[in-house]
């Protein structure tokens, strides 16, 4: 595995009797935009939580950016950016203050935080809104500021957990451009989504996950060809007999 890639080997995560992640193994190449596609409750977010150190796996091993998850979580945290499914932010801080706070938590210099914040806020169209308290933001603005907070440290590896949920079409398109931009910068991106179109348009490869298990893994085109399907939804139906968004 090249540096900045991700490797999971036989990862299992159990919550009492429930197996949320069941013997998951796959690799993400450095610079790859990798999609984890699956219905709600498939185990996508649990996988992200394991890879970012928020949950300990019941068994199995993983490496992120060449570092062992169990031994070097501190090193991993220095090189990742995580955009959570539920956008967490401080409502009494302005958008810019939220972004700067997370820059400081990543140990960035004042100058670097300012430069990077300007750049990212401009990209997501939040330069003017950044001086307002985040508690007054619309749903779309909250999503966008959450994305900027996640990427302020210019991470080598970005974990984006359903970043476009509840976004209007315009905001979603802008976020897609933003994510494509990360790829052109050579960043490794793991994107979880249950939007078929999003996975097809953005991802180099897609891992389809259902009930904690990886049921398919390839490029979107190859998957559709393999299952003689018109889209990834069709691929999922052909494998499981169910729709992704049932």
């Amino acid at each position, binding site marked *: 595995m090249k540096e900045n890639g991700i490797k999971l080997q036989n990862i299992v995560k159990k919550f009492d009797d429930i197996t949320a992640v069941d013997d998951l193994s796959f690799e993400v190449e450095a610079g790859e935009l990798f999609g984890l596609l699956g219905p709600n409750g498939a185990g996508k977010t649990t996988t992200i939580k394991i890879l*970012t*150190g*928020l949950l300990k796996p019941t068994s199995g091993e993983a490496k992120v950016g060449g570092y062992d998850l169990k031994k070097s979580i*501190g090193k991993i*945290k*220095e090189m*990742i950016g*995580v955009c*959570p499914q*539920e956008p*967490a*932010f*401080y409502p*009494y*801080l302005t958008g810019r*203050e939220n972004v*700067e*706070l*997370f820059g*400081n*938590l*990543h*140990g960035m210099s004042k100058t670097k935080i300012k430069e990077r914040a300007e750049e990212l806020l401009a990209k997501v169209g939040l330069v003017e809104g950044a001086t307002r*308290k985040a508690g007054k933001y619309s749903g779309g603005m909250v999503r966008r500021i959450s994305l900027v*907070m996640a990427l302020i*440290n210019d991470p080598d590896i970005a974990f984006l957990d359903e970043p476009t949920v509840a976004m209007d079409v315009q905001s979603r398109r802008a976020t897609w451009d933003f994510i494509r931009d990360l790829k052109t910068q050579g960043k490794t991106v793991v994107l979880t989504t249950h939007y078929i179109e999003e996975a097809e348009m953005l991802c180099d490869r897609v891992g389809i996950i259902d009930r904690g298990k990886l049921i398919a893994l390839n490029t979107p085109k190859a998957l559709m060809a393999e299952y003689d399907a018109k889209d990834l939804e069709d691929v999922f139906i052909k494998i499981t007999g169910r729709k992704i968004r049932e």
Partner: protein
Amino acid sequence: MNLQRIYSLMKKDLKKLVRVPATLFLALIFPLILTGAFGFAFGSLGGAGGEVAYTIGIVDLDETIWAEYFIGNLTESEVLETKSYDTSVEAEDDLSQGIIDAFLVIPENFSNSFNSYNLNPTNASTWVNSTVELTVDQGSMIVSAAIPPLVQQILAETLYGKQSMIVAQPVQIGTPEGIEADHFTQFDLMAPGMFAFAAIFLTMIVAEGFVEERTEGLLRRIQVTPTSPTDVILSSVTANMITAVLQVAIIFIMANLMGFNPLTDLSGYIFAFVIVLLLALCNIGFGLITASIAKTPGAATGISFMFILPQMFLGTFVPVPDAVGQLVPAYYVTDALTSIFLRGAAITSEKVLLDLVIMIGFCVVIILAGITVFAKFGREK
């Protein structure tokens, strides 16, 4: 531990203090209103705490010049009004009806005690001992707390004279060292407890803050950065210590505006900040324990009262038996500040230092317990 992270998180907490009205009210405006309201109601600026506060009945069985002198001193105190009775039964009857707040019985051998002391002040074995019986209205916590020390004070002045109170005495009557013959209003007696009163609400502020951050996913979000749990807890401790300093300053300023004039110098003021900061640390520890138990901010508010109420009733300005009060840390803060502010005790006096040492002990145990419990159970629910 990383100073940049601690500073930025602390700054965030202080911004919350200023920008979130509920936090601002609880932390800073509430102590301001409380001190102002109590000062106005019970202090020298208000009506109730003015020149004459209590009526005390006198049953004089001695009827000598010494007894008259003592009664004269009681009246001159301007805090007490006196009313004469022939028998203690009559006085007790008026006390039970609320006509008087207390009564005292001057015994027949009262003047003998004074004369024997004056004949030979250095030889206690020659003195004739006597006891002035004092009965107070137990239905009023303020009266039962305020009158005994006042009467004791005036009795000492009658025996030794006012000047003798500030020099070493061969005879001790059980009053704290260095008392001056100032007249305390009810507010003066309550003021030391107010410093503790404000700080104990930090339990709620800390608990609600952490539970909110946890339920909103902010603690988890911070957890995926290189920030350590130590950085998070230290930033909260620092921000709340700054809040406690502001609380003490607000109460000092407001209490002084309301006529409170502590019998201390700069060292006493500095000591007040130090001991209240120790109490603040204790309550940050209680807040962390509360945050570890509570699943929602509402539950945190409710559970925090388990720590706030005992401290409020046992350790501030509500008079309770010492044995009960000694169970809570706030008691030692109020006790030390009462000694310093009302009795003029030095910060190096044995009693004050003992209170400080006990507070340090409480502080270490509670904050360590809070950090341990929160690190284990509080970060995820």
